[in-house]
């Protein structure tokens, strides 16, 4: 079963088109990455999935039910962490977490305490005194302490330091091991790379790529740096080589992943002294997509 099934989803605000025919399929047990630049439509998509925005056209189904009409039923089985967490300044973090847990109907005290410790959150402080990161933690604790089938996370770790980001990633892996699904929007690409089975890239309200990470690798480039005894010639004529930069006898290039064997064969003629290569990153893929269509800043 698909836990999220979005078909030809469009959302307009007046004359502005925020989503333009978005298709998404998230299967049970998947950790699904949803990446795109700011303003691409990530949060709008999530808000339609939560039934707090009404789709202008197309359909959005979550856990097999309609996101708008069956919102309450769906929300019993999902947990959500927004990108920017705003809480009631006059309630404490602990009170808010309990409120959220009670509203969902699950109440797992042990899990709550454990998460408070792992995220290093003082539940007795008023939310008005929390920093952005601490408010984020409140939402994360409330989400992971609840027994949901689908976790919808909208740039959830944007306010966390690296240590807590690690805790967050552990939490995501744990729920995945329990067979739960996670829908994770992000522009932190390393996070998506580390956690996600499948990725969709959205830009200006349209999905421009979808696939598993290895499927998307054909779009990625490897950065290669090389030092040779004999000066390299003819590199411009090898297909799949980009961004040639020379610094003394150190040459760095970008290589299309599927062209790597040919390029290496070419380079080896010049007696390699040192060779460095970086892994293909979504960063490059993302930047290329972003540039290639000449996007707005």
């Amino acid at each position, binding site marked *: 079963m698909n836990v999220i099934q979005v078909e030809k989803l469009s959302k307009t*605000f*007046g004359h502005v088109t925020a989503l333009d025919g978005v298709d998404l399929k998230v299967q049970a047990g998947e950790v699904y990455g949803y990446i795109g630049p700011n303003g691409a439509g990530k949060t709008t998509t999530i*808000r339609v999935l*939560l*039934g*707090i*925005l*009404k789709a202008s056209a197309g359909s959005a189904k979550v856990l097999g039910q309609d996101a708008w*009409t*069956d*919102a*309450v*039923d769906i*929300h*019993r089985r*999902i*947990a*959500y962490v*927004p990108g*920017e*967490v*705003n*809480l*009631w300044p*006059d*309630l404490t973090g602990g*009170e808010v977490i309990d*409120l*959220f847990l*009670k*509203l*969902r*109907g699950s109440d797992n005290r042990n899990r709550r305490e454990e998460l408070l410790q792992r995220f290093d959150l003082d539940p007795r402080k008023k939310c008005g005194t929390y920093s952005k990161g601490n408010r984020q933690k409140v*939402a994360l604790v409330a989400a992971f302490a609840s027994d949901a089938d689908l976790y*919808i996370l909208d740039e959830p770790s944007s306010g966390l330091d690296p240590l807590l980001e690690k805790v967050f990633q552990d939490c995501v892996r744990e729920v995945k091991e329990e067979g739960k699904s996670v829908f994770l929007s992000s522009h932190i690409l390393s996070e998506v790379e580390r956690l996600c089975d499948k990725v969709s890239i959205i830009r200006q309200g349209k999905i421009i790529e979808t696939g598993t990470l290895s499927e998307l690798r054909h779009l990625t480039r490897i950065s290669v740096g090389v030092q040779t005894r004999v000066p390299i010639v003819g590199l411009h004529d090898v297909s799949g080589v980009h961004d040639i930069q020379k610094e003394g006898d150190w040459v760095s290039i970008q290589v299309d992943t599927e062209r790597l064997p040919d390029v290496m064969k070419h380079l080896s003629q010049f007696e390699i002294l040192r060779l460095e290569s970086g892994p293909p990153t979504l960063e490059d893929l993302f930047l290329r997509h972003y540039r290639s269509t000449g996007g707005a800043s």
Partner: protein
Amino acid sequence: MLRDRGHQTSRLLRLILRRDRVRIAIWLVGITLLTVVVASAYTELASTEQERQVMAETMRNPAMTAMLGPGYGLDDYTIGAMMGHQMLLFTALAVAIMCIFLVARHTRGDEEYGRIEMLRSLPVGRLSNLSATGLVLLGSCLLIMLMVGISLSALGIESLDWSGSLLYGAALAATGLFFGAVTALFAQLAETTRGTVGWSVALLLLAYLIRAIGDVGNEVIAWLSPLGWIVRSQVYVNNYWNPVFLTALAASMVFAFALYLHSIRDLEAGFIPARPGRRSASRFLQTPLGLAVRLQRTALIAWAVGLFVLGASYGSVLGDLEVYLETMDLIQLMLPAVEGFSLTEQFLPMLFSVISIVSTIPVLLMLLKLNAEENLNRTELLLARSVSRNRLMSSYFGIALVVSMVVQLLAVLGMWSAGVAVMEDPMAFETIFNAGIVYLPAIWVMMGIAVLLIGFVPRWAGGIWLYLGYSFLVVYIGELLQIPQWMANLSPFGHIPKIPIEDFSWPIFLVLTLLAVGFVVAGFMGYGRRDIQG
């Protein structure tokens, strides 16, 4: 699916009560206490039949009708009739303001700050939050009705019987419900809390003005305003319940419409959409002064128009007052007449004492904006650049000073131009001008205290509203009840000479102005030295 719309309403209701238990309690107790204190004061003030009838005669004129609603039961002016006529409308305004803030805070307020988004991602119905807010509103209004009704009848004053007291409370409750429902509706239309509160208060003032115009001139017009309905319940004399039922019915219809609009709209959207703004800042905006003006622009324009209209509406009754005087000689005998002054001239200082307190509101709003900006951590954005604290505060202070003079002048102009239009023998512009402008030092003292609070104890800066409320009580009710002079003297407004009956006094002008200057200088020094909060 339909049943889901209100899912978990009771839990959200408890959340609202948990957050607002103290706030609501203070409002309820405050309104009840005020009512009880005034009612007991009346018994001391007008203990004899004759005293009561003298008071009744002072009520028989259009200016009083415009301010308080049409008089009733004046032939046998009991304490009950006094309460119903003189106190009901203004207490109802206070209840309406309480309800406007209550509803705006829990609807658009929470939505604007993104808290509703968190709730709506949980199994909570689409209409649950609005329904819970509506229930809290209903509960608060019912409590007001019972608390006011029971405590008034418990005073054991003969004319304050149980059924009348309950109706008095019910009239307050119905007004609160109506304006709370109106706020719920504006929360669907406007995209911000400021907009929601602004539109709701504007409608409240409009309702007051329509009622004033209607009560003086044309009964039909008065029926266009819910406040016009409320004053027609003739509490303690005829005890008409129908206006209260009508108001409550209208409230539930407005609230139902708000629920409908809420059910079909996107979260954080409004039916009055925000327009796209400028691409780049105008030259004017590029200074702290320009920014301060820009942030308050709409509010300032609205207040300026409002004060002009308020002046004009008071001015428009001057003509009726004049005609009335010609026909009724009796009044002049019964009024504590002041030699050489017409009745209209005697009313002037009373009208301006109320207008001046209203004029103080935009002035204080401008100053407190500096404080609000600080609490939202936006002041530091400016102070982190090459802007000194003195420059920042003097921007807000300078605007407030200009506003104080402009709005007061507009009220004077409004009253004068309306007076010219309706009076056969119009008052000289100079008379009205002096009567209005003489209040400026009192407004400046209020400004000074606000600056002082912002400079030293920003957390308590909002306390200036309590002081303004106190000033209103002693000036407005003091006028009716003749409270001890020392209580009036605790407010700067109590010291202002009643021009034209009394003469302008340089010592009072200088002392109040110097006091204001002293407060301001101290406040600036405090602001320069203390930590910026947030």
